[in-house]
C-alpha cells in the first residue's frame, strides 16, 4: 500500500498548509487586514447587492436623512426614491435616503452594515426591518464569511458564548482565502449600472406570484390613519409580538444594534414589511417585542396589518402584489405609499422634535 504520508518533509508540508488555513484569519489580522472598503464587493452579485452596499457606505459622501437597513424583504418592500421624494417635499430641501441590505436575514449582518455606514456618514434616523420566520437557526449569517474578519469590532463580539465565537471563527476561516486575494488586487470592477440594478433588485419588478403571470394592480393604498401605524407598546391590538423568539445569537446582535444606535445618538425605528403568508391577518406578526430586545424601550415599530393594507383588494388579487414572499412592484409601490406618511411623521418627531401629525 502506498503510504499516506511518505516522508517527514511531506508531513511538515501538510502541517504547514493546514495550520496556515486554520490560522489565516489571525495571521491576516496580525499582518494587517486589507482595506475594509473591499469587503462587500467581494460578494458575488448572484448572492446579493454587496457592491451596491459598498458604494453606499464607502464611496458616497455626505449626511443621510434616513438610512434603511434590512433584508431583501425591505429592498422589495420600500421604494426608497419615493420616500426620498416625499421627504424632500416635506423638508423643502433635497433629502437623502439610503439603504443597505444583503440577501438572507440575520441581525449580525444588519449590525455590520449599520456599523460600517455610521462610521462613515452622519445619519438622521435609522430604520430596520427585523427578522421574520424566514430566519431559520441561530448561527452567523450565510454571508458572514465575507464580512466578518478576525480582530475587527472586538467589542461587539466580546459577549458571545464560546460556541458562537467558534461559529464566527469558522466563518472567518472559510472566508480568509478570498480575503487574501484582496492583498494582491482589488475586486473586479462592477459596471455602475449593474450596481444600481443590484440595489433595486428590479428584475423582480414585474414578476407574477411564484412564476404565474404578472397582473398590474392599483397601487394607491386605502387611507390609513398615521397614528394606527405606530405600535403602542407590547399589548397593541394591531401587533402580535408573541412569535417564535430569536435564539441567543441573534438576540445578542439585536442588543448590539441598540447599543450602536445609542453610541451614535441616532434615532432608531423598525418597520414591518408584510409577507404573502400574512394575507388576511388583522395583526402585524413580529417574532418578539423588539424595543425590549434591542434595549431601546422608546424605539417605535411601524406596521400595517395585511388585512388593513389590502382591505379594498379582493382576496383573490392580493397575491398579485407578490412574486414570492417578497413584493413585486405592485406591492412595493402600494405598501410604500401606505407607510411613507408614518415614516415622514416619525422623522419629524425624532429629528426635529415635532409631534406626529
Amino acid at each position, binding site marked *: *500500500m502506498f*503510504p*499516506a*504520508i*511518505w*516522508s*517527514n518533509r*511531506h*508531513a*511538515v508540508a*501538510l*502541517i504547514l498548509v*493546514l*495550520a496556515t*488555513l*486554520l490560522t489565516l484569519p489571525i495571521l491576516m489580522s496580525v499582518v494587517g487586514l486589507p482595506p475594509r472598503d473591499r469587503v462587500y464587493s467581494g460578494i*458575488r452579485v*448572484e*448572492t446579493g447587492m454587496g457592491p451596491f452596499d459598498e458604494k453606499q457606505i464607502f464611496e458616497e459622501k455626505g449626511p443621510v436623512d434616513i438610512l434603511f437597513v434590512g433584508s431583501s424583504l425591505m429592498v422589495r418592500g420600500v421604494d426608497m426614491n419615493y420616500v426620498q421624494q416625499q421627504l424632500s417635499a416635506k423638508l423643502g430641501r433635497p433629502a437623502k435616503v439610503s439603504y443597505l441590505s444583503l440577501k*438572507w436575514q440575520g441581525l449580525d449582518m444588519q449590525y455590520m452594515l449599520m456599523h460600517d455606514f455610521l462610521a462613515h456618514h452622519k445619519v438622521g434616523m435609522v430604520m430596520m426591518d427585523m427578522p421574520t420566520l424566514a430566519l431559520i*437557526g441561530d*448561527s*452567523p*449569517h*450565510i*454571508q*458572514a*464569511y465575507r464580512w466578518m474578519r478576525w480582530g475587527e469590532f472586538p467589542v461587539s463580539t466580546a459577549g458571545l458564548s464560546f*460556541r458562537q465565537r*467558534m*461559529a464566527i*471563527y*469558522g*466563518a472567518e*476561516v*472559510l472566508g480568509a*482565502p*478570498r480575503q487574501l486575494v484582496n492583498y494582491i488586487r482589488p475586486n473586479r470592477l462592477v459596471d455602475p449600472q449593474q450596481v444600481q440594478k443590484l440595489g433595486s433588485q428590479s428584475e423582480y419588478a414585474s414578476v407574477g406570484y411564484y412564476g404565474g403571470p404578472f397582473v398590474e394592480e392599483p397601487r394607491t393604498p386605502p387611507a390609513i390613519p398615521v397614528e394606527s401605524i405606530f405600535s403602542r407598546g407590547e399589548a397593541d391590538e394591531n401587533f402580535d409580538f408573541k412569535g417564535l423568539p430569536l435564539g441567543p445569537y441573534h438576540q445578542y446582535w439585536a442588543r448590539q444594534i441598540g447599543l450602536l444606535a445609542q453610541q451614535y445618538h441616532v434615532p432608531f425605528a423598525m418597520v414591518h414589511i408584510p409577507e404573502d403568508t400574512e394575507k388576511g391577518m388583522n395583526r402585524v406578526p413580529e417574532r418578539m417585542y423588539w424595543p425590549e430586545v434591542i434595549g431601546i424601550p422608546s424605539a417605535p415599530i411601524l406596521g400595517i396589518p395585511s388585512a388593513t393594507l389590502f382591505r379594498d383588494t379582493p382576496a383573490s388579487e392580493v397575491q398579485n402584489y407578490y412574486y414570492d414572499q417578497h413584493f413585486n412592484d405592485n406591492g412595493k409601490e402600494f405598501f410604500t405609499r401606505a407607510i411613507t406618511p408614518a415614516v415622514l411623521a416619525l422623522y419629524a418627531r425624532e429629528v426635529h422634535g415635532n409631534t406626529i401629525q
Partner: protein
Amino acid sequence: MATQSSKANPFLVGVLFVLCVAAITLTLFITPDSLSVNLVYQAF
C-alpha cells in the same frame, strides 16, 4: 512485514492528526448554508 501507512515521524503524524480533527471540528460550527452557498455559486 506489514505495510506502513506512514513513513513520517510519529510525532509529526500526531500533529497532523490533531490539525485534521481541529479542521473537521471547526466545520461543525460553520453555518451549513454558508458551505452550500459557496458550492452552488462557486463563491470563491
